């Protein structure tokens, strides 16, 4: 099987690859989401702690 044959997916290339592409995008987004949230949370808490310390 050649590469172009593989990519053509027996004429169903658009359907097969768009399915796998959308799946990849959604799975990656679900990992990036909590990674960013964690960084933001830790920064928020650090800021709040500094503020509280300055007040006291």
């Amino acid at each position, binding site marked *: 099987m050649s590469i172009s044959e593989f990519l053509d997916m027996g004429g169903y290339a658009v359907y097969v690859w768009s*399915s796998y592409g959308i799946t990849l995008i959604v799975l990656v987004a679900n990992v990036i989401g909590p990674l960013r949230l964690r960084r933001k949370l830790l920064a928020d*808490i650090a800021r709040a702690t500094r503020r509280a310390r300055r007040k006291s």
Partner: protein
Amino acid sequence: MFNNFFHKLASPKYFYGFSGRLLPWLATGFILLTLAGLYYGLVKAPPDYQQGDSYRIMFVHVPSAWMSLFIYVVMAGAGAIGLVWRIKLAEVISISSASVGASFTFLALVTGSIWGKPMWGTWWVWDARLTSELILLFLYLGIIALHNAIDDKRIAARATAILAIVGVVNIPIIHYSVEWWNTLHQGPTVTKFDAPSIHLSMLIPLLLMAVAFKLYYLMVVLMRARCEVIERERNTGWVKQLVESQ
């Protein structure tokens, strides 16, 4: 000892450390199984005698659909445990499952639609399987919206748990929809009681992807739960220590 482990695990601080050590293993397992699944599914498995190569959408569609049901049951089960025994970690696992569950439901619907176009000649039909899966997506979105609408985390957890438990009636409806009603959607080929009517060369990548998606869910739900735990425990000593050590 076993009991003791679960007792310790339920403490947020211990859970945070333990899940942090687990994550790299889950990520590695997910990536290896996915690569193997893709290789056997896209390269090794022969084209289907009726559907040609379009059937390869199955290797993401079917595991996504399985996960959409599995995660819902976990979410409702953990919600019920949180409701009855007031275990905070169960509440956290329950709500942390909602967005990844919604994502898999979305994927099952979209990849199914993309598969339906060349095979059935239509993107969408209002039949039992498709409609009940769409209702599942709305249940997930409703649970996320309800949780975001309530500020008090404990009250939010109780409200979403009740909604999730009520929504469980939809799960057997989705599963049996292809048997109870006439539908365009094909019947089960793997979860039948007699031998699965799918060739081994197609069954292997399907199962590889299914296990990969399970590991992926475990990874994402732990990542989300860790954020939720930090947020809930932000005023405790161990979280402050964690923030300072970063």
